[in-house]
């Protein structure tokens, strides 16, 4: 390395200060020469003799200089710079074509950069911790759920017994915590993270201020109310005040002492959200999400995400082996909770690319489409470069004839491609940046800040530029190889020469065919996605989304007991019912098509024969009150809805949807049937009604099982109030506020908005972004294919001008010429279309299996896409072909 220290400045100087180096070389030798001459004169030689002797001593001054120049070992680089300069000059001679090729590549690269930034953010970006490669995620796995969390007790056992790791840490995100900086202020909702005492140490994260947790601060439940602030939160909420350490803040009404601030470099381990503070796991009771479960005791209260740092000398396979043994130990010791349960060790990459991950699916689909566009762009650019190289046959022939090496010429031509590709790459970064901006503008309507992690960072930039260099090689190599392998005599005679043999035309034809095929596939894909989303929207969501105001409440934020919470909700709905403009009210844990996921219920249906390998079934569920169904307009098709009488003391009841009823009791009436909750051992629940099947999570989801439980029997503190009116729902904000004030002026109203807002963001805007992206891919693909075909035909017309002239001179009419020029292009389009259809079907199957859960072929999509494709490409071929029919025979014959 030291070598570089001395020689690099020298090299740089020889490149950048070429003239000065020359001058200095001259001066140095001159200095020597003068002394030598003086010496000669002093010895009594005549000045002329002395000069002659001096020159002889240096034997050949110019030769010496050349020798020294060679010594600088930068010849290749100065050659390259010469090439670049030459390439720029020659590209400037065909500005239109150059601009077009640059734009083509810019589009290709730009459209790849956007999805790559997604892929990077969602999959590849490493954890922001020290040696992120050593961090493993440990998960419990069962037949029903391959990636389950661990319970607190299980975590403690893992921490005590697993020896593959230098540390095992656990965390649990808290989505809504009431935070107030002072005792007397109304709490605001903030998101935080419960973490084990060793969390920061295992991750290798040093607080920028104060300290992290001590081990003893995470041992006694409820004892140590200490909090570490996240950097962003500290900046926003405390104006980066360093005296914050030692201060007392309130979380869910309890006092916590700030002990430190996490570093800027650690925004947290989650992709989409950033915790704003960290509190020890031992404080979990205060933030408990489910009052029915006992976090510190229940071995099956599985909520913890466990991460561990692998010891240097231990492989993942060894760690997995140890986990298998530990899991078997759990199974032996706690058969009730751990029957058929295993445990897995996963790297970040494995975790993020597991088959059920929607982020992964989306990024892969987009990246594949983008690579398709890039391929079309590159083949297009290659075609254009090829035709450019061919029209320069003569220049290349002259250079070859004058003795330029073939390798040297190829390098020159490749330099041209490289210049184009770098320009295109830079343009592409601009396009990509715009695309990412677009993605970032998609905001999510939540009170908690949701981070959109897509950004144009160094990784994306590097990838884009690397792609453009690859593009250059791809676009430039074939034309460079072909055009430098020529018959010199023929090349010198005419400006353009068509080589005998079909091989080289085959290359161009393949380009056009693949362009047509790829863009047809892209168009079909975007059309299918649009239709997929549209048709799923068209199916309807099954409930009325208009005239609804929603407000979220979480009485835990102000320390309500369970009884107080129930009382609050009862009074709230009662008083609202008496308010003018309120038609009805309902309470739900989670409104449909929102952004939160539903709770899962493990149940065993009565009289249903369980498959041998299953303990229970899983279904999504919601907790609602009696008013929910009428307010949302979800019909009860059989049996009854919930009633006030379904109280905590009354027999347990549930309402299932039609899909559920048909699924488990296909030929019977499900009303009156029972199922057991929480697996085989839980309480028996009687089905009292059947509700219409609606859309729950996504507008494009397949009909699925769903269960509703009455809120009196399945208490959840955090509920969403839905208020129906006949007018503008925003008019209800004030009346609702008044009622809440009347009940408790301290009760925070979280996320007050119309339901339509939420619906639009979650179910329309999101898919729309995807549709727009894919649609743009398709449009760009079509544009590129069009340009490619136009180029091919125009090139042929130019090449065969003379032939056309002759044909017309001997009596061919315009139709014949048109047929001659377009015929082959259309055949190529035909072949491309057939291949494109095949690709389209494949993509459709992929989309259906990944997104829409639909089967079959969307004939209409192809009925639209194929004719559009044919029309556009025919037009692209027609325009230049038409100009061929205008060739005057006399002029054409004189041509060349």
């Amino acid at each position, binding site marked *: 390395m*030291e*070598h*570089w*220290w*001395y*020689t690099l400045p*020298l090299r740089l100087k020889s490149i950048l200060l070429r003239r000065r180096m020359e001058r*200095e070389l001259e*001066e*140095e*030798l001159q*200095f*020597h020469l003068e*002394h*030598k001459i003086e010496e000669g004169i002093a010895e009594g030689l005549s000045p002329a003799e002395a000069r002659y002797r001096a020159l002889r*001593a*240096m*034997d*050949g001054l110019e030769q*010496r200089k050349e*020798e*020294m120049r060679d*010594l*600088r*070992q930068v010849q290749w680089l100065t050659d390259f710079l010469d090439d670049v300069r030459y390439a720029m000059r020659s590209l400037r001679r065909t500005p239109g074509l150059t601009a077009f090729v640059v734009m083509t590549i810019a589009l290709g690269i730009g459209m790849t950069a956007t999805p790559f930034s997604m892929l990077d953010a969602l999959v590849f970006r490493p954890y922001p911790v020290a040696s992120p490669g050593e961090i493993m995620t440990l998960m419990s796995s069962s037949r029903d759920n391959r990636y389950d969390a661990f319970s607190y007790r299980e975590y403690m056992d893992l921490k005590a017994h697993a020896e593959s790791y230098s540390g095992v840490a656990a965390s649990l995100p808290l989505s809504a915590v009431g935070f107030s900086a002072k005792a007397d202020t109304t709490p605001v909702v903030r998101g935080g993270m419960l973490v084990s005492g060793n969390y920061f140490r295992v991750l290798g994260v040093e607080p920028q201020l104060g300290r992290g947790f001590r081990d003893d601060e995470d041992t006694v439940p409820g004892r140590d109310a200490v909090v570490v602030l996240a950097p962003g939160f500290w900046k926003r909420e405390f104006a980066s005040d360093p005296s914050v350490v030692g201060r007392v803040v309130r979380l869910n009404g309890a006092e916590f002492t700030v002990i430190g601030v996490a570093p800027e470099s650690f925004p947290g381990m989650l992709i989409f959200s950033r915790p704003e503070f960290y509190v020890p796991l031992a404080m979990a009771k205060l933030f408990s999400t489910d009052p029915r479960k006992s976090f510190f005791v229940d071995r099956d209260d599985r909520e913890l995400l466990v991460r561990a740092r692998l010891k240097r000398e231990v492989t993942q396979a060894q760690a997995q082996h140890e986990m298998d043994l530990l899991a078997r130990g759990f199974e032996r010791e706690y058969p009730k909770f751990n029957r058929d349960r295993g445990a897995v060790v996963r790297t970040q990459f494995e975790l993020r690319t597991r088959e059920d991950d929607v982020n992964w699916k989306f990024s892969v689909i987009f990246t594949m489409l983008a690579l398709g566009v890039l391929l079309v762009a590159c083949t297009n650019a290659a075609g254009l470069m090829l035709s450019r190289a061919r029209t320069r046959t003569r220049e290349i022939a002259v250079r070859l004839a004058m003795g330029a090496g073939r390798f040297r010429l190829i390098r020159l031509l490749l330099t041209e491609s490289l210049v184009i590709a770098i320009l295109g790459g830079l343009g592409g970064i601009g396009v990509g940046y715009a695309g990412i901006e677009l993605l970032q503008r998609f905001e999510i309507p939540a009170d908690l800040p949701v981070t959109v992690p897509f950004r144009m960072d160094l990784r994306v930039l590097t990838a884009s530029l690397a792609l453009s260099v690859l593009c250059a090689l791809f676009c430039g190599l074939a034309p460079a190889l072909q055009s430098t392998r020529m018959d010199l005599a023929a090349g010198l005679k005419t400006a353009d020469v068509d080589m005998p043999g079909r091989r080289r035309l085959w290359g161009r034809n393949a380009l056009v065919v693949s362009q047509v095929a790829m863009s047809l596939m892209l168009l079909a894909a975007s059309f299918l996605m649009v239709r997929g989303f549209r048709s799923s929207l068209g199916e309807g969501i099954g409930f009325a989304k208009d005239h609804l105001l929603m407000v979220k409440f979480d009485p835990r934020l102000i320390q309500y007991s369970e009884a107080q919470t129930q009382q609050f909700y009862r009074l709230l709905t009662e008083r609202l019912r008496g308010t003018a403009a309120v038609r009805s009210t309902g309470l739900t844990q989670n409104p449909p098509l929102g952004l939160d996921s539903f709770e899962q219920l493990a149940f065993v249906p009565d009289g249903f024969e369980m498959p041998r390998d299953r303990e229970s079934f899983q279904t999504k569920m919601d907790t609602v009150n009696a008013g929910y169904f009428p307010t949302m307009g979800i019909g009860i098709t059989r049996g009854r809805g919930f009633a006030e009488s379904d109280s905590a003391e009354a027999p347990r009841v549930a309402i299932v949807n039609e899909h559920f009823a048909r699924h488990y009791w296909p030929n019977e009436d499900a009303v009156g049937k029972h199922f057991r909750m929480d697996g085989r051992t839980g309480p028996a629940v009687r089905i009292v009604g059947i509700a219409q099947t609606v859309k729950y999570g996504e507008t494009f989801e397949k009909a699925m099982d769903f269960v509703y439980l009455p809120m009196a029997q399945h208490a959840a503190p955090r509920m969403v109030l839905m208020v129906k009116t006949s007018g503008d729902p925003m008019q209800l904000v004030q009346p609702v506020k008044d009622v809440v004030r009347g009940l408790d002026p301290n009760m925070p109203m979280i996320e007050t908005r119309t339901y339509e807002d939420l619906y639009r963001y979650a179910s329309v805007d999101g898919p729309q972004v995807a549709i727009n992206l894919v649609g743009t891919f398709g449009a760009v693909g079509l544009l590129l294919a069009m340009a490619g075909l136009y180029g091919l035909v125009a090139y042929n017309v130019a090449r065969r001008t003379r032939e056309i002239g002759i044909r017309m001179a001997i009596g061919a009419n315009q139709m014949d010429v048109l047929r001659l020029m377009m015929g082959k292009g259309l055949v190529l389009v035909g072949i491309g279309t057939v291949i494109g259809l095949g690709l389209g079907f494949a993509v459709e199957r992929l989309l259906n299996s990944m997104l829409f859960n639909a089967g079959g072929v969307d004939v209409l999509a192809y009925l639209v896409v194929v004719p559009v494709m044919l029309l556009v490409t025919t037009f692209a071929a027609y325009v230049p072909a038409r100009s061929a029919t205008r060739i005057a025979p006399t002029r054409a014959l004189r041509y060349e």
Partner: protein
Amino acid sequence: MSKPNDLVQGTLDLLLLKILALEPLHGWAISLRLRSISGDVLQVSEGSLYPALHKLEQEGWIQAEWKQTENNRRAKFYSVTRLGRKQLETETANWQRLSTAITNVVQISEA
């Protein structure tokens, strides 16, 4: 590259490094120094001197600096770098090994 000279192959580098290790010099002074030190035994063509200097510079063994000479003329002075001193040590050791070996061979008495 250059004409064969009277030096043992590859020793020019060693000589230049050695001379420059004593003090920084410009090209002309180096050629004078070479002549005077070695008497007339070692003949270094002045033509090969500069390419050799530039080669050493490219290797990072010596570095150049434009300075005033005692006659107030601008000249390019060469001095040995840290890397060059290491190289000098190696080459000196090599030379000593080689010359001992050659001496040994030459001194074998014919029996």
